[in-house]
């Protein structure tokens, strides 16, 4: 059963220079117990999407539909969404140091949500926080609960963030670039931790990352985003076996590989487009090495088999074959 259903999500930010459409008609679902990886470069709209699910956009105009465990988030009453936050859906962020309050003990910060949503007593919430710290692999959790964030290492801080997110036993965990700020060895540990917690608790996880390596490790399904839109949607196995969109292939080509013949990395030329004035047609066409005339004028739809991708080449191939 799908826990999170996003339909035609549009997030726009009014700016003095015009409206920026950061997310443009995005649809996807996350099922219970599964992990969806959303991949894209900076500015592709992945973090904006996650904040929209949390109902944390202040100045943005959000339209479309976000159904979280049966509750519609878009346009809902602030208090109603607030009751979901931390309780049904929890989030961990990129930089665990700046995401933790520097002036409060970590135990207190973890216990805070439990006391709020479950009305737990100070003592019970603290005990639970210590248990969570143990669960996420922090040694001597009893003592460490009394420490401040700056007394932890980067990886330990991210563990604290995860413990905090788990405090109210949410159904959905959104992890927004949870390993980007960490050392490589620590990255692997944190990903393993998230995967283990997901297995043990049957959580649905939305993993937001720019790193296909992360997706390969943890995701069941993948959504590739470009300029606020989905360009390819598949199970992880399918995506890595047969990427259909030139952008996805570009992303894969820019990953170093340890197996197979050695070769140079192939970066995608150029930079993501301005969302203030997106290019006409397919937003990826200025950077696409395989572009054809129609790409400059018409926006491709997300469609096709074995899994949907938004590229004119795919429809043309089909026509040629047919």
């Amino acid at each position, binding site marked *: 059963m799908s826990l999170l259903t996003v339909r035609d999500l549009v997030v726009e930010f009014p700016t003095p220079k015009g409206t920026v459409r950061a997310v443009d008609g995005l649809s996807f679902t996350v099922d219970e117990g599964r992990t969806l990886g959303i991949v894209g470069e900076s500015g592709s709209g992945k973090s904006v999407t996650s904040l929209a699910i949390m109902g944390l956009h202040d100045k943005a105009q959000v339209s479309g539909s976000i159904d979280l465990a049966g509750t519609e988030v878009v346009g809902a009453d602030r208090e109603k969404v607030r009751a*979901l*936050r931390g309780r049904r859906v929890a989030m961990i962020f990129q930089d665990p140091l700046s*995401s*933790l309050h520097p002036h409060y003990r970590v135990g207190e910060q973890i216990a805070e949500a439990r006391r709020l949503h479950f009305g737990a007593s100070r003592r019970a919430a603290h005990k639970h926080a210590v248990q969570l710290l143990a669960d996420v692999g922090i040694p001597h959790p009893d003592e460490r609960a009394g420490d401040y964030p*700056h007394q932890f290492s980067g990886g330990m801080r991210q563990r604290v963030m995860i413990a905090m997110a788990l405090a109210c036993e949410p159904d959905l965990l959104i992890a927004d670039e949870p390993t980007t700020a960490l050392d490589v060895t620590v990255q692997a540990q944190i990903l393993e931790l998230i995967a283990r917690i997901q297995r043990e608790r049957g959580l649905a996880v939305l993993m937001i990352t720019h790193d296909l390596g992360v997706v390969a490790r943890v995701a069941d399904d993948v959504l590739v985003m470009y300029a606020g839109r989905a360009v390819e949607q598949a199970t992880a196995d399918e995506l890595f076996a047969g990427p259909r969109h030139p952008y996805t292939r570009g992303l894969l080509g820019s990953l170093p590989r340890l197996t197979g013949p050695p070769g140079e990395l192939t970066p995608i030329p150029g930079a993501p487009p301005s969302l203030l004035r997106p290019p006409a047609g397919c937003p990826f066409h200025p950077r696409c090495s395989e572009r054809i005339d129609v790409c400059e004028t018409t926006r491709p739809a997300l469609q096709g088999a074995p899994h949907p991708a938004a590229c004119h080449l795919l429809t043309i191939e089909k026509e040629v074959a047919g």
Partner: protein
Amino acid sequence: MIRYLALRFAGLAGVLLVICAVTFTIFYVFPADPALQACGKSCTPERLAMLHHQMGLDRPLWQQFTDYLVGIFAGRSYGSGPLAVQCHFPCLGFSYQNNMPVWDLMMQRLPTTVSIGVGAALLWLVGGVTVGVVSALRKDSLLDRTMMVGTLTSASLPIYFTAMALTVVVVQIGGLLPYSSYVPIAEDPIGWTKNLILPWVALALLYAAMYARLSRASMVETMAEPYIRTARAKGLPERTVVTKHGLRAGLTPVLTVFGMDLGALLGGAVITESVFGLPGLGQLTIDSINKSDQPVVMGVALLAAFFITFANLVVDLLYAAIDPQVRYA
């Protein structure tokens, strides 16, 4: 913590000692002969010599300085024999003008200055921070802009202008309050308040404007911090996000400035006291400078320095209580 405290107090003593030495040098080494100042108009050479001895000016300079320091902590006597004058602890010397002990003179004036300073400080702290925080939370709204223009205006007006304007409007035209004079709080708390309202408001308007701008800037910055987003992501009500998570970090910088400002003000609110004719330390300072009453000027300078350094110490300790990173540094 005890070690830290001890270190800080030692530092405080060190700073005061340096200030003491500097003021002492300025007043006793450089221009005029203090004995000549004290001697008065009908001065004879014999009397001058006697005064030199009496004031200890015939002793080497370093001895004069140590005498001065010892006097502060243990009292001392000036001169010797039957003419000796006893100066009790804490001895800062005698005024040249009226031979009163400097300490007593200052203590007479201190309640006025403390009343003005503390009252105004509470007013500007509450007012300024409230305006600043509300402004920060409603950033770029009409309310924010109006308040920021208001604070800019208020900060631009010199205190003698606001003081006079307030007096004209409230006292002369409105007849709502008496002309300011100092009434001890113990004698008549209502009269004390009535007399001090205008000085409080005049002083607070100036400071409140700065505090509003400072706390706005700091709160705007804090509310954009990722840990505020984390607090919201937990589902905390916005009220809790602001008060528990925002204010704690956002108002820490305000605290530093507040300690220093209050400390400085306790050394004498010179302009406010002058404009309202209140007999505080500021007035005493001006009087004694005009009359070259060096012991008094020195005493006031030392007291002011003490207040500032002490306030600074208190702020640092509070800082350590608020911010664990300072505590463990």
